[in-house]
């Protein structure tokens, strides 16, 4: 096989990795939380079954809605796939699209799908959709500048905004890994991850009360194929963010370093193992903290911003 074709196939494997395992992570996280709360919980394959069931169902679309409502699920399904082409999901060496976009582009792609999801939520005239949409934007307006500062801090620490280059800069030595600026960025990113994914201190992902929801009431109006794509898309977005967080920022090890097939396939269990460990941490955070009041979220994100500024300051004065 020519090297070109080999690279292309590795790219396809990355996409398949995302498509296949994203619902599994969702199921594992739900199961872990139930176990910590002393319950049995659904099977870890429940999300697959939900998606399968939804694909077989009829779709009901409000007469009031426009093309935006039908278009948004496709966008939110496709964007994580684009993102995974830009980031080191399985390989430590850059693939085709590695230099087409940096982490800012990753943020831009996610922002696009978020933008359409918000428009679609307001499109139907359901009461809870616009409430969720405006609250999502409230968190978004606070989180996005912090994301920018975090990316700048990260690129300042690692001297690049290309995810592959950032990944490579940590693996050089333990000293690079443990420098204070890097640790501060990790912590700030964890806070941002929780805010962006609607996890517990900010929003409750398993809550069923519409009036208290922040982001999760946006999808209430979807049914059938639309709902399946939304669900799968959000699971993939979670996994793609997890890949950015784990493979690029916290634990840059365990990726394939050669184009050898065995190496690439062996990276899959290693990356999944890292993700499982992080899901355990996330489940503990989710079950041990209480949800913040809506107007306290600004404090949460202000702390993330200040930690990012610290990271840059530490770097500027040459400590870390």
């Amino acid at each position, binding site marked *: 096989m020519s090297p070109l074709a080999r690279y292309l196939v590795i790219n396809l494997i990355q996409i398949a990795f995302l498509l296949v395992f994203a619902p599994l992570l969702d199921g594992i996280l739900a199961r872990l939380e139930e176990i910590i709360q002393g319950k049995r919980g659904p099977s870890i394959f429940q999300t697959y079954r939900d998606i399968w069931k939804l694909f077989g169902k009829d779709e009901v679309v409000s007469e009031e809605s426009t093309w935006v409502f039908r278009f948004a699920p496709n966008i939110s399904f496709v964007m994580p796939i684009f993102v995974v082409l830009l980031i080191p999901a399985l390989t430590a060496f850059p693939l085709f699209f590695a230099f087409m976009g940096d982490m800012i582009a990753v943020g831009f792609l996610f922002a696009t799908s978020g933008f359409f999801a918000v428009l679609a939520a307001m499109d139907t005239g359901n009461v809870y959709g616009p409430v969720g949409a405006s609250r999502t934007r409230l968190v978004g307006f606070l989180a996005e500048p912090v994301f920018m500062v975090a990316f700048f801090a990260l690129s300042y620490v690692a001297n690049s905004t290309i995810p592959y280059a950032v990944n490579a800069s940590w693996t050089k030595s333990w000293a690079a890994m443990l420098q204070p600026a890097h640790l501060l960025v990790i912590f700030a990113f964890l806070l941002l991850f929780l805010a962006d994914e609607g996890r517990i201190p900010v929003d409750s992902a398993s809550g069923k009360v519409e009036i208290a929801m922040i982001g999760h009431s946006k999808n209430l109006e979807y049914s059938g194929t639309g709902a399946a794509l939304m669900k799968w898309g959000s699971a993939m977005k979670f996994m793609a963010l997890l890949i950015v967080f784990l493979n690029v920022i916290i634990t840059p090890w365990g990726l394939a370093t050669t184009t050898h097939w065995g190496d690439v396939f062996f990276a899959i269990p290693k990356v999944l193992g890292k993700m499982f460990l992080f899901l355990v941490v996330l489940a503990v955070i989710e079950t041990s903290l209480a949800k913040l009041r809506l107007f306290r979220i600004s404090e949460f994100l202000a*702390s993330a911003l200040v930690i990012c500024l610290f990271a840059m300051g530490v770097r500027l004065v040459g400590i*870390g």
Partner: protein
Amino acid sequence: MATAHAIDGLFAALFVIFGLGVIGTRQMLGTLYLFVLHSLALTGSAIVLGVALGSPHLFWVAAITFSTKVVAVPLVLRYSAGLEIYGRREVDQVLTIPVSVLIAAALALVAWVAANPLVHALAARPFADINVPTGLMAVFFGAFTVAVRREAVAQLMGILIMENGAFFASISIVNDLTIIAEIAAAVDVPVAALVIGLLIRNIHSVTGITRVGLLAELKERR
């Protein structure tokens, strides 16, 4: 040595994060736990420096810090001001949390700039470049907490954070201080906590509140 430097950097980062947490937390109990974690980061840094510099005195610092700040201070506070810490939930303060964390960021920059000449002067000390600015930052954070909080218990946390910061900076500068001096400095901490705790209890039993911000004015003037 490079690895020890890196691990010391880890503890310095944790030290900063926990110090910032004390400024950013509203819960009374949360600030106490963050102070304990803050002291654990100091202990860790002392152990790393002790191993790297081969100085037994620093192990003493670590042991004393652990026993006084991680173990004794929470116990003393539970004894002397238990109701105030374990019974109450939120502390209020003069500034909002986002404003105070932003001011904390500014203070951090001031600390770095202020520590810069010191770091150059202490170039012979291998860990001073990390510990001196970080310790100075914690001193500023503690002073800021004292100034901004209206609650006696939270102000006590600020004082203890300042003390931690001073220790964090000094272990990298003077690493062979005699144990007597260290014990003397360290025993002060639970004693201070005890005295302030008893004062808090007295204030509480007389006035029913410990919001010292409200007690600053004389009653007749209102």
